[in-house]
């Protein structure tokens, strides 16, 4: 199954695109991976079972099965249909219902519309009615529905017995206990009672909190988040002298400077930032420019036009330097910072400087000072009234909780390493899982999911949104509001009534509130503010922090919110664990991220286990070399290494909280090799395009030049014939007629898609949305290592760098002390001459899914015609016809087809292979033949019926759940297309109004398109010249990937446009679109030869 693909057309000169350091170095491992359709062993049965012996065995078992079937009779099992006793009004079985609700986050909420079939929520979408949104969501919201159906969630009320074990108790008994607590604290005014909660924006919870404070005046309330997003509010409050929180308007800014602020990735509310940022990055409508200073390589850095690789503890220096430039200080020693400051000053009024959640408050104050100095407040920064209950100091917690500690959500035993200070403290916990903290609690109350409970929340822009339940609690959980109300001894305990009382109305306004899913509470922006700190004060603030030189013996550690498991709360969510990290493409693990230079200096390589010691504590984890990391900076993702997460999340990765003390950036760490190695499941080589230039880039200057020329030519030539320089490579016309030409004449629609590489930031929301919509299973780390992940769409992340580009890091003179060392700088540069350009990378993200080729190469190799075209241009897959030869995948140039090697749906990850599949024929377990064991119980290891029933609830009934042995791939969400067509036809009845049109709003959205916060994916009818997708396809930036193969893909891409500043030291004038020049010349040569 080895392919010889020697027609690689990777550019030899100019910019280079690569997925990993292995690819760049062209290591044997990479080549081997590349030349196989599936990686070595992926298409073979492992552990000694050969295909031949398996077939022999199977033919025997088929014969036996045949006998059994004949004996047992042949009718399908009798099935029952049970209609309601009392018919429900306005309900039709089989039609989906949609309800507005919201997912609460730490500092806001995501307004949602949730699709429900037969009373079970199956798919989460953004609320498209919501004014400050576009129907997009983030990946956490998309994945949260899987938590609802998690078989491992807490199902019972539990009390710790005298023997120290937890025993299940009846719900009534648990509620009586809450009542007794309420009575006790009513008499003692809450003496010895403390609450530990996660931050929340719910007005109802705030109201109950006040009631508790009145009833139990001595009780104390603590709020804690492992990932503290409250810093933005605290810093703004300190900077402006009144209680405010900032809202950043990335759409209004022309020049943006990110000071270690991953606003497109790790920051709270990232989906809103992505939406606004994408709106400001339209090449033809005044594109913004993004400067990023950061130590980790983040999604924000990947989207930046100029990126400065700098240790996180030195980022404050850049902020200070820029502020002094604005204040007219001496010219900066660093050309990068100097030119950046000039650009900021020149764009006064349209500038936005943001400091990251990881950065200390001083850096935030500097950012606000710069924003104020450049007239950004009220323009690119809106100040809204603060939300109560941001992070508080936990020092008094154990003293306050002398009698009872109530823990609402969170997992302090895991992420605070907390345990009860004294044995006399009764710990009452309301938690979604029986996790690490439940182990230390005396009472454990199962919490409800947000899709099963009433609630409310405030979004980041100040709107009140309802949280409406779509289903009764699956396991009799208790709502947080009800829990608090009962604890407070309130008479009104139903969450629905509490929320309604907070809202203050039950009539039409309440109905409208629930229908729309939001109500805009008028929160006027605060404009009358002054920055209280003067420049000198800020200098003083920084003085203590200045010049903490990082070195191999004084490493910096950066702790960050993981893109998948958040602070650990999604550790048992299989979709999240298997989603390749947007930057590292790592699945099922976290790693110690380091730069190449650091790896070399410390003598470590990918997969080496190292012990990191910080403040006397240590943790062991595997090393991963990440291009773009700052030198001597270690990136540790929080949220892994859970011990009591559940069957999916237990023991995945290592627990970085062990050395975390609340400072997200810490210096003084040392590293030691333990000698062990560890295998990491990274998908960056999977489905590689072997250096063929799949992505295209432009500089804005080139774009404008071409646009001008295009305008001039427009008078004489048709637009379609004038192309931007080389975006679409020359396509030789085929001799054969296109088989679709005939169908196009009669079909109602022709579907197509356009993906804007300039808008896509690579966040991965679409991947999870696709997984949710299309019932895509997870396969586990072992299977990912074999290249068997099932995602129908993936995000290819290409690093790009330019050997000729000037060294960006050395332009950080005066900022990075390493470069102030005189002779050392030259030496470092000399021996790194080859390397530095690799480290100063940029990245391009390309969502890759079935391209729906009109002349699809997969179709003509299928021996059973299981994959063929329909009349509307879809390359369809008939699962029940597929016999699993995998020829189609072999022949697909885009590598977008996925094969069900095992029964991923009905078997848990640990039991994927069953009794026979994993062993040889002669194998015995406990003295018994495996064949006999299998015969006795062929379903051994399958999920139990009740667990399977629970999991079935989460499946989308509109899409088939595929079994082992069939091929599958993106279908353009054919179920949504069919549903839209059927609805339109049913509406048309005896008329010809059957065509879906964008004008009438009847064209469906694919799951990826609907979820994308950037609006990068547009799907529609390309036979309608006025549809958005048709218009985008006439854009000069439109190109098809590998178009010269004459596959005629229906999915095309818009080239990415960057907006670099010509004055910057790391600028290079790419006169031609990156990566196309070589491609073009090569295809021209080929044309000449043929």
């Amino acid at each position, binding site marked *: 199954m080895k392919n010889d693909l020697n027609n690689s057309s990777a550019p030899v000169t100019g910019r280079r695109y690569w997925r990993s350091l292995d690819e760049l170095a062209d290591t044997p491992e990479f080549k081997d991976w590349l030349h196989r359709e599936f990686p070595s062993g992926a298409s073979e049965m492992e552990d000694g079972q050969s295909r031949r012996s398996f077939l022999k065995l199977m033919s025997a078992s088929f014969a036996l099965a045949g006998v059994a*079937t*004949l004996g047992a009779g*042949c*009718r*399908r099992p*009798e*099935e*029952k*249909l*049970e*209609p*309601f*006793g*009392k*018919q*429900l009004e306005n309900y*039709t*079985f*089989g*039609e989906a219902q949609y309800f507005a609700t919201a997912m609460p986050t730490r500092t806001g909420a995501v307004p949602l519309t949730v699709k429900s079939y037969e009373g079970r929520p199956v798919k989460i979408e953004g609320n498209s009615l919501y004014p400050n949104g576009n129907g997009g969501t983030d990946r956490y919201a998309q994945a949260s529905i899987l938590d609802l159906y998690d078989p491992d969630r807490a199902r019972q009320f539990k009390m710790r017995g005298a023997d120290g074990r937890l025993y299940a108790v009846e719900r009534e008994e648990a509620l009586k206990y809450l009542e007794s607590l309420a009575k006790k604290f009513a008499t003692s005014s809450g003496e010895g009672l403390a609450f530990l909660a996660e931050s929340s924006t719910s007005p109802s919870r705030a109201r109950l909190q006040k009631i508790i404070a009145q009833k139990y005046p001595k009780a104390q309330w603590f709020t804690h988040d492992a990932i503290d997003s409250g810093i933005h509010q605290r810093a703004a409050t300190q900077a402006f002298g009144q209680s405010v929180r900032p809202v950043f308007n990335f759409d209004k800014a022309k020049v943006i400077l990110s000071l270690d602020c991953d606003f497109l990735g790790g920051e709270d509310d990232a989906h809103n930032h992505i939406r606004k940022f994408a709106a400001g990055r339209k090449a033809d409508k005044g594109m913004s420019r993004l400067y990023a200073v950061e130590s980790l390589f983040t999604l924000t850095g990947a989207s930046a036009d100029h990126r400065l690789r700098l240790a996180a503890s030195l980022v404050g220096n850049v902020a200070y330097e820029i502020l002094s430039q604005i204040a007219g200080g001496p010219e900066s020693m660093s050309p990068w910072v100097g030119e950046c400051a000039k650009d900021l000053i020149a764009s006064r009024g349209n500038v936005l400087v943001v400091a990251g959640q990881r950065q200390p408050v001083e850096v935030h104050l500097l950012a606000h000072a710069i924003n104020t100095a450049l007239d950004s407040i009220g323009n690119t920064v809106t100040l809204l009234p603060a939300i109560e209950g941001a992070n508080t100091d936990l020092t008094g917690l154990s003293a306050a909780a002398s009698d009872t500690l109530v823990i609402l959500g969170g997992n302090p035993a895991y992420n605070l390493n907390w345990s009860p200070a004294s044995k006399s403290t009764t710990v009452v916990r309301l938690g979604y899982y029986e996790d690490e903290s439940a182990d230390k609690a005396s009472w454990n109350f199962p919490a409800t999911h947000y899709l099963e409970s009433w609630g409310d929340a405030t979004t980041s822009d100040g709107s009140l949104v309802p949280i409406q339940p779509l289903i009764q609690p699956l396991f009799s959980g208790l709502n947080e509001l009800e829990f608090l109300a009962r604890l407070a001894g309130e008479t009104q305990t139903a969450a629905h009534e509490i929320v309604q009382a907070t809202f203050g109305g039950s009539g039409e306004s309440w109905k409208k509130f629930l229908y729309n899913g939001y109500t805009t509470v008028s929160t006027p922006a605060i404009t009358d503010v002054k920055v209280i700190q003067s420049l000198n004060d800020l200098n003083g603030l920084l003085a203590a922090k200045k010049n903490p030189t990082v070195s191999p013996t004084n490493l910096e550690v950066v702790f960050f919110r993981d893109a998948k498991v958040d602070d650990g709360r999604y550790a048992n969510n299989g979709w999240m664990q298997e989603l390749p990290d947007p930057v590292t493409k790592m699945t099922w693990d976290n790693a110690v991220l380091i730069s190449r230079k650091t790896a070399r200096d410390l003598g470590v390589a990918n997969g080496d286990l190292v012990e990191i010691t910080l403040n006397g504590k240590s943790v062991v984890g595997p090393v991963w070399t990440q291009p773009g990391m700052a030198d001597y900076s270690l990136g540790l993702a929080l949220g892994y290494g859970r011990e009591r997460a559940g069957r999916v999340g237990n023991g995945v990765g290592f627990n970085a909280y062990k050395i975390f003390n609340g400072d997200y950036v810490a210096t003084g760490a040392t590293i030691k090799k333990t000698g062990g190695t560890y295998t990491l499941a990274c998908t960056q080589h999977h489905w590689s395009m072997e250096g063929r230039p799949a992505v295209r880039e432009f500089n804005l200057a080139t774009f404008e030049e071409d646009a001008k020329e295009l305008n001039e030519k427009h008078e004489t030539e048709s637009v379609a014939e004038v192309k931007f320089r080389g975006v679409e490579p020359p396509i030789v016309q085929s001799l054969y007629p296109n088989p679709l030409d005939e169908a196009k004449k009669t*079909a*109602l629609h022709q579907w197509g898609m356009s993906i804007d590489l300039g808008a896509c930031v690579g966040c991965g929301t679409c991947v999870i949305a696709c997984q949710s919509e299309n019932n895509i299973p997870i396969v586990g780390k072992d299977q990912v290592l074999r290249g068997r992940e099932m995602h129908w769409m993936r995000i290819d992340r290409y690093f790009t760098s330019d050997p000729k580009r000037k060294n960006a890091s050395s332009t950080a003179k005066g900022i990075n002390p390493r470069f102030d060392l005189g002779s050392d700088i030259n030496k470092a540069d000399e021996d790194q001459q080859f390397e530095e350009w690799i480290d100063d990378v940029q990245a391009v993200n390309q969502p890759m899914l079935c391209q729906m080729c009109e002349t699809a190469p997969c179709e003509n190799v299928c021996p059973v015609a299981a994959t*063929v*075209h*329909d*009349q*509307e241009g*879809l390359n*369809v*897959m*008939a*699962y*029940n*016809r597929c016999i699993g030869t995998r020829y189609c995948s072999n022949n697909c140039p885009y590598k977008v087809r996925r094969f069900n090697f095992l029964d991923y749906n009905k078997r848990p990850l640990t039991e994927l292979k069953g009794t026979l599949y994993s062993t040889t024929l002669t194998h015995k377990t406990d003295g018994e033949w495996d064949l006999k064991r299998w015969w006795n119980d062929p379903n051994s290891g399958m999920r139990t019926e009740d667990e399977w029933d629970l999991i079935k609830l989460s499946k989308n009934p*509109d*899409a*088939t759940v595929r079994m082992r042995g069939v091929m599958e791939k993106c*279908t353009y969400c*054919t*179920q949504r*297309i*069919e549903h839209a067509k*059927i609805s339109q*036809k*049913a*509406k*048309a*009845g*005896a*008329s*010809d109004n*059957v*065509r879906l049109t964008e004008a009438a709003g009847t064209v469906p959205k694919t799951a990826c398109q609907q979820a994308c916060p950037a609006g990068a994916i547009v799907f529609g009818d390309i036979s309608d010249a006025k549809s958005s997708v048709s218009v985008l396809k006439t854009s000069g930036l439109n190109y098809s990937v590998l178009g010269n193969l004459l596959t005629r893909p229906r999915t095309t891409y818009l080239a990415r446009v960057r907006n670099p500043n010509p004055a910057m030291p790391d600028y290079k004038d790419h006169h031609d679109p990156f990566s196309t020049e070589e491609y073009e010349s090569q295809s021209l040569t080929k044309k000449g030869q043929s």
Partner: protein
Amino acid sequence: MGVLAGGAVAAGVTIYLTPKYTRAGYQPVQPVPFSHSIHAGQLGLDCRYCHNGVEKSWFANLPGASTCMNCHALVLKDDPRLAIVRNSAANNVPIAWVQVHKTPDYVYFNHSVHVTRGISCVECHGRIDQMDEVRHDKSFSMSFCLDCHRDPAAHIRPPDKVTKLDWQWSTNSVEAARLQNVNGKKFVHDWKVESLQSCSACHR
């Protein structure tokens, strides 16, 4: 010997594993002796009175017992045969009807698009209005679906006649066939009825 065994296997597969024989003719006993021939035939109740989702959903929907009680609160109100129905309506206990018509799980058949576009119930279900106990009348094999999808003009009728199972273009069968041919083609053309034969029409 080999020929015999092969023949036996072929016959076994044909009889037991193809939908033509596995389901056609299936007539299970239902918990309530409800007669379609009385209700739909003699009384002339429209199919949609009970199967009220048929124009909106993929599923025709079964009536709740409360729908039965609209009439049976007065008619046959103490009949012992209706005890289950009365109990269901009073206590909201579902009646466990046995499913008769079934397509395979990988087939996504949709009622609404067929009945609203002039394909009558009778095309797939036969003369339900003449059955006491409902019987699976047609085979529901893939070729059964395709026969119609290849030539919708031979089956299409005015949408207001889809629930009239005995309706004909004319009492004269020759004339009826002629009118079906003429009008069928006209409907297919005027309403832009597609002859859908690609996989995506039924499989997702």
